[in-house]
């Protein structure tokens, strides 16, 4: 699975995800990626793209959970991402990238690794795989 999230100079917040699914899938199985609010979601506060065990991500309504946690708790992007990955989902199930409307970036996982990268207009830049 691959994904990207971005906020631009006009404040547009966008999320996208694309995947081949899981090896050996049957019966027209559909994972979390195309389910809005699950593996892909964007609101007026945050854009989220997930990767990992699709069924777990769907059951947690992951993308929408992050957005709602930020809006209604209220919470920061980091708090919302940690809530999803550490309190809702179980270890080994998922990775997540997100940007909020202020340009804050969140990339984390409860697996041992995630191929990822991030960058912003202030020169912060990272490419990483493991912790």
């Amino acid at each position, binding site marked *: 699975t691959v994904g990207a999230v971005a906020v631009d100079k006009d404040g547009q917040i966008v999320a996208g995800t694309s995947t081949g699914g899981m*090896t050996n*899938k049957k019966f027209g199985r559909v994972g979390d990626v195309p389910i809005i609010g699950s593996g892909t979601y964007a609101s007026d506060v945050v854009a989220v793209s997930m990767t990992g065990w699709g069924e777990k991500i769907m059951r947690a309504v992951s993308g929408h959970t992050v957005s709602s946690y930020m809006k209604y708790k209220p919470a920061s992007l980091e708090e919302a991402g940690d809530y999803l990955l550490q309190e809702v989902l179980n270890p080994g199930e998922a990775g997540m990238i997100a940007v909020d409307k202020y340009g804050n970036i969140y990339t984390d996982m409860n697996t041992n690794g995630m191929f990822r990268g991030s960058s912003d207009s202030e020169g912060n830049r990272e490419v990483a795989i493991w912790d």
Partner: protein
Amino acid sequence: KEWALALHGGAGAISEDRPDSVKQAYFDDLDEALTIGEDILADGGSAEDAVEKVINYLEDNPRFNAGKGAVFTHDGEHELDAAFMVGNTREAGTVTGVKTVKNPITLARKVMETSEHVMFATEGAERYADKVGVERVDQEYFYTESRYEALQRALDQEEEGDGKQSSLIPEEDKTALYADGEKYG
């Protein structure tokens, strides 16, 4: 911040026990994908374009499970899913089970921009692809040897096991391809 961007190429049990050259190749590809998005946003381009083009690059890269390099289904095919959403307007477009669309994220964006609906599936998504004119390919385009071998191992294990479809990649696949062991998708 004027702009910000993040990307991923899958998560899972990623082995660190691989040659440095292989690790570096992944880092280089992620760096290239990031640069594509950075250039668009730094030039004043839209987040929509940045997200689509970054994902297009990753879809075209056989190292990642999307587009070329997608995993195989039980029937030896490739079925691709994609989604695109703009938060400010709550517009969204998604496709699932497409088999001949080279870049599913581009079709998902077109669903969002040109359709009154949110999701198209399988044959319907293919027909919508005909209508909007995205690039098409044969199933062979998506083939990679490593993914084919991963399917054969999964089928072998299934035959030896309880017959249930597993949501996890078989244990032996963890060493089949760098970082591919439990890249669930």
